[in-house]
C-alpha cells in the first residue's frame, strides 16, 4: 500500500522547512518562554497560536538516545545509527533525528552533535540527512526558494489472508466453480460466502454450487474516468443476482450497449481462458446478456 501524500504546510511549518532548505534551523517561542524546535504551531500549554520565530544553531547536545542495529525501510540511514533527542543550542526543547555515530560505544547523553545537511534540499525534515558527532559548526546558510508544500511518501506492506470460510469459494474459483454458503439460521445463500452471516453473526456452513447465470437487479453506467480504473468508460457496472443466491454482487456487464441494459436483464458469466484462472472472482472476466426473457420485477425487488 503506497501513496505520496501532498501536505500544505501553513505559515509555521512552511517557515521551518523553508529555512531547512536554506541550511538554517528555526524555532518558535512558546507562551512559557521556551523555544521549541521544531516550531510548534500551537502552544502545548495554552493552545495559543505561536508566532515568534527564533533562530537556533545547527549544533546541539544529545538528551536521550537509542541504538538501531538494523535500520528499517526509509529510515534516515541504512547502516546502524542512533535515534536521539537533540537540544539545539538556543532551543529549550529537543528534536528527534538520527545520529550517524558508527557504534553505540561512541554515543552518550550529553554528546555534542551538528547537522549534516543533505546536498539536494527540497524543504523537508530529511534535508537534515542526520546529525554527526562534532563540536564544529555546520555549513553556512544559503539562499533557496520558499516552500509551502511537502510530499510524504507512505509505503507500508501488509499480508492479507483469506478467511477460512472463503477457502472453498476460492478453491472453487480455481476450478471454474461458484461455491456459495448458506447460513444455518436464516437459510440465506451468500455468494461470495462471508466469514459470518451479517444478520445472524454465525459462520455460514452449508456449501452450495451455483450456476453462472443470473439477473441484473440494478446497475449504473460508468462514464467517469478515475484513478485505478481498468477499462475505458463508458461501461456498465451491474448488480448480478446469481440463480439460487440471496444477495447480488457487483460485476462488469459487457456485450451490450449501455443504453440497452435493463433492470431484470438475464445474464451469464464470460470466463477468462482457463490458464489465467487464480483464486479470484476476476476469473469471470465479465457478464453478458444470456438472451433469456427479462426476469419479472417481483423476482428481484427484494434484492435492491
Amino acid at each position, binding site marked *: 500500500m503506497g501513496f505520496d501524500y501532498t501536505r500544505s504546510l501553513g505559515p509555521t511549518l512552511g517557515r521551518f522547512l523553508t529555512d531547512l532548505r536554506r541550511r538554517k534551523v528555526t524555532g518558535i517561542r512558546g507562551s512559557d518562554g521556551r523555544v521549541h524546535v521544531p516550531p510548534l504551531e500551537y502552544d502545548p500549554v495554552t493552545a495559543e497560536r505561536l508566532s515568534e520565530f527564533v533562530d537556533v544553531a545547527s549544533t546541539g547536545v544529545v538528551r536521550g538516545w537509542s541504538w538501531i542495529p538494523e535500520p528499517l525501510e*526509509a529510515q534516515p540511514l541504512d547502516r546502524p545509527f542512533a535515534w536521539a533527542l537533540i537540544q539545539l543550542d538556543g532551543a529549550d526543547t529537543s528534536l*528527534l533525528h538520527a545520529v550517524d555515530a558508527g557504534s553505540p560505544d561512541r554515543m552518550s547523553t550529553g554528546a555534542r552533535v551538528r547537522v549534516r545537511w543533505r546536498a539536494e534540499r527540497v524543504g523537508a525534515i530529511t534535508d537534515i540527512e542526520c546529525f554527526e558527532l562534532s563540536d564544529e559548526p555546520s555549513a553556512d546558510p544559503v539562499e533557496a526558494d520558499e516552500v509551502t508544500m511537502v510530499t510524504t511518501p507512505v509505503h507500508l506492506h501488509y499480508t492479507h489472508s483469506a478467511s477460512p470460510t472463503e477457502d472453498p469459494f476460492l478453491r472453487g474459483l480455481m476450478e471454474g466453480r461458484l461455491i456459495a454458503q448458506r447460513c444455518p439460521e436464516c437459510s440465506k445463500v451468500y455468494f461470495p460466502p462471508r*466469514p459470518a452471516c*451479517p444478520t445472524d453473526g454465525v459462520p455460514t456452513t452449508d456449501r452450495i454450487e451455483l450456476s453462472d447465470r443470473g439477473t441484473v437487479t440494478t446497475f449504473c453506467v460508468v462514464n467517469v474516468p478515475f484513478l485505478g480504473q481498468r477499462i475505458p468508460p463508458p461501461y456498465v457496472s451491474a448488480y448480478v443476482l446469481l440463480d439460487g443466491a440471496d444477495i447480488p454482487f457487483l460485476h462488469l456487464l459487457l456485450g451490450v450497449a449501455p443504453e440497452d441494459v435493463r433492470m431484470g436483464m438475464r445474464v451469464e458469466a464470460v470466463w477468462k481462458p482457463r490458464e489465467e484462472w487464480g483464486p479470484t472472482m476476476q476469473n469471470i472476466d465479465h457478464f453478458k446478456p444470456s438472451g433469456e426473457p427479462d426476469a419479472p420485477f417481483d423476482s428481484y425487488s427484494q434484492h435492491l
Partner: protein
Amino acid sequence: MRDIAVVGFAQTPCVRETDGTTNGVEMLVPIFHEVLGGLGLTKSDIGFWCSGSSDYLAGRAFSFVSAVDAIGAFPPIMESHVEMDAAWALYEAWVKLLCGEVDTALVYGFGKSSAGQLRRVMAMQLDPYVVTPLWPDSLGLAGIQARMGIEAGLWDERQMASVAARSRAAAVSNPLAQLSGSVEVSDLLATPYVVDPLRRHDCAPITDGAATIVLAAGDRARELCERPAWITGFEHRVDSPSFGARDLLGCASAVAAGKAAGAGGVEVAELHAPFTHQEIMLRQALGLGDDVVVNPSGGVLAGNPMFAAGLARIGEAARRVHDGSASKVLGHATSGPLLQQNLVCVMEGRE
C-alpha cells in the same frame, strides 16, 4: 449518576498470527458467543454497541465496517466506533449508559498486528510533517525513553528484566497468554539488545487478538452478575505530541487520570505497558505501592492485541472483582507514542 458495572468479559487467545482477515470477524464471532452466552443474553438484549480498531493496523479503509458482520446487526443496532483502543469505546459506552437511554452495552476491540510491520505502522501516529518522514520505529522511540529513565536513576536494566520475568511467571496461570513461563532475570540480562537499551523481553510481543466487555446499569447489572465490578472512576487524558515539549518521564496524563479516577487503595492493577520500563513509570504515575498486585494476567508483555489490549486490561481487572479475589481494582489503557494518552478505570465490588 447511575451505577454502572462491568458484568462480562471475554477475549481470544493471544497468538502471533491468526489465519483470519484483518476486519476481525473470525476473532469476534466466538467471543461474542462466549460473553453473551455466559450472561444468558442474546444480541437483542444489548442496548448499545461500541468498538475500537484501526484502519492502519488492518491495512485497509473501513475495517470496522465489516466487523459489524460478526454481530449480525439486523434488525439495526445502536452503534458507534472509535479509532482508538477499545478501552475508549468502553468509555463512550459508559457515557451512553449514564445518559439513561439504555441499560446494557457490549464493547469490543480487535487487531491483527501480524498483517503489517508493526514497528513501521506505528510511525504513522507521529507528526506527519516533521517526524513520520524519518520513520522512527516504536522500539527506537521506547529505547530513548528507557535510557532517559535509566540515566535519571528511575530504573535500571535489571528492574526492567524483573518486570518481564514477573509478567511471564504470572501468565502461566493465563491460558490465553502468548508468552509465559519461568525465566531468570540473569538469563534475560544475558540476551543481546534489540534496540539498545531494550532487549526482546522488554518489548511486548506482536499479537493478533480481540476482546469484549459487557456493561450494565443498576439492577440490570445485579441480575446479570453475582458480583459486578462497579465503575467508581473512569478518566482519560492526553499529553502534547511534542517529544521535546512534554516530560517523557513524568507521564502527566496518567498522573491526572489516576488522580481524577481515584486510584488510591486499589488491590490489583492491570497496566497497559508495552515496554517494561513503562510499567515502572505507570506504577509511579498512578501512585501504586508495593502492596498492589500488578498485571496478574501477565499484562501486555505476555500478549498485546493492539486496539483490544487496553480493553482487556479493564476486563482482567474486573475479573478479580467478579471472582471475589479483590474488592477494588484498576484497569489502565494507553494510546499514542510513549504513553501520550492514558485512561484509568477504577472498579469496586460491593457486598
